[in-house]
């Protein structure tokens, strides 16, 4: 009897499995035009599903029975048809709020963003920032502090004027505060709430948001200041190639000649300007929600140039719903900020514990002449003049 029941159980199990496979492959006609099991399974796997079969099936008010009929007040759309109209943005919606996104009652494409923001983005942040920190710690252990090689002269040269240092510190202080408050927002749900609880995190989150939103202006102003103060000194030239070929003497050997800024500093400068500018623009898009939509137009332009095809990808989504614009802006803002933060980690390291005498440039504005000769020999010649420089050599 037990054997018989076991046999029945096996047959039923395999029959159900086969039935499910058949259902997955069933045609639209077999469901009367409704979605199939294959559609549902594809959606659950996060695959793109062709929604055209139902996006237009939102009823027909013109076909409604006249009000004189018994069922006339039901109108020309069933509940499912009405919900489809909400989902695919064709419903005639009136709201008290008149914002651009107010009439999007259901945003159908937001789950991938939520999953990416709650999981993948945090993983990227941990690996990028943690990896950079560990790499710098390892470099410090192997290379040690880069010392001034020659005899110190006891004389100093003015490296940066007060206005330059003001711009630098305004940018640095705003960036550090923005970075910390940004990470509070990014890791709040996963890290801070489990650590401090909802009430404490609520206080931190509200404060972080206020600080992040308002200090952003100081960052933008400082970015403009340092751009105009230093752009002339950061234009690439031939000395940069030699500097890069010797990796700036970071791994030993002599320091290659450099002007006011060496190639490494120029790379940092342009990274700050380009990535910082991009962070500012996407931040403004987030600061004034739905007012400045960046991604729909960009995606459309890239599609028209065929850029996604160069990488074997399908066209980028277009048009975007207002919420999707904000989702892309948030991801872009966070990702570019994380990349810039990793770069700034290296900048902070070399400007402080990594190199003897480097901090004085921004701390006091004056640097030891020997330090300047070793790291910016061409700039020293410009500042002291060739005659003075030769005298020093003698």
């Amino acid at each position, binding site marked *: 009897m037990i054997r018989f029941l076991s046999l029945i159980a096996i047959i039923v199990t395999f029959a159900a499995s086969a039935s499910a496979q058949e259902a997955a492959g069933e045609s639209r006609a077999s469901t009367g035009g409704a979605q199939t099991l294959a559609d549902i399974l594809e959606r659950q796997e996060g695959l793109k599903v062709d929604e055209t079969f139902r996006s237009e099936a939102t009823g027909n008010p013109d076909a409604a029975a006249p009000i004189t009929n018994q069922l006339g007040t039901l109108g020309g759309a069933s509940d499912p048809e009405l919900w489809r109209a909400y989902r695919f943005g064709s419903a005639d919606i009136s709201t*008290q709020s008149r914002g651009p996104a107010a009439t999007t009652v259901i945003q159908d494409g937001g789950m991938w963003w939520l999953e990416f923001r709650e999981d993948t983005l945090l993983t990227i942040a941990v690996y990028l920032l943690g990896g950079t920190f560990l790499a710098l710690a390892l470099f410090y252990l192997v290379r040690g502090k880069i010392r001034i090689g020659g005899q110190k002269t006891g004389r100093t040269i003015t490296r940066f004027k007060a206005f330059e240092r*003001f711009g630098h*510190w305004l940018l640095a202080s705003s960036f550090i505060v923005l970075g910390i408050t940004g990470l509070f927002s990014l890791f709040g749900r996963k890290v801070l709430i489990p650590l401090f609880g909802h009430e404490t995190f609520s206080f931190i989150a509200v404060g972080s948001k206020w*600080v992040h939103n*308002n200090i952003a*202006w100081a960052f933008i102003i400082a970015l403009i200041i340092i751009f105009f103060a230093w752009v002339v000194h950061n234009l690439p030239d031939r000395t940069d190639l030699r500097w890069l070929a010797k990796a700036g003497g970071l791994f030993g050997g002599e320091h290659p000649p450099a002007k006011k800024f060496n190639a490494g500093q120029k790379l940092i400068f342009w990274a700050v300007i380009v990535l910082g500018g991009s962070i500012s623009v996407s931040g403004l898009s987030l600061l*004034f929600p739905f007012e400045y939509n960046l991604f729909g137009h960009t995606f459309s332009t890239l599609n028209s140039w065929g850029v996604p095809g160069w990488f074997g990808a399908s066209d980028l989504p277009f048009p975007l719903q207002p919420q999707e614009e904000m989702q892309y802006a948030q991801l872009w803002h966070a990702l570019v900020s994380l990349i810039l933060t990793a770069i700034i980690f290296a900048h902070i390291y070399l400007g402080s514990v990594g190199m003897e005498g480097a901090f004085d440039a921004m*701390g006091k*504005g004056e640097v030891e002449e020997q330090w300047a000769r070793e790291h910016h020999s061409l700039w020293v010649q410009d500042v002291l003049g060739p005659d003075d420089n030769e005298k020093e050599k003698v």
Partner: protein
Amino acid sequence: MKPFILAIFALVVISFGANQILLNSGFSSADAGTSHENVRLSN
């Protein structure tokens, strides 16, 4: 050291100043996200 202290001072002034300017210019989230019109009357 003076430029650093001045930068921190400017940071605070710019932050509070920007906040006040935006609030008084009708860019608060309350102003930007709601309408004073009654949806039932206007529609």
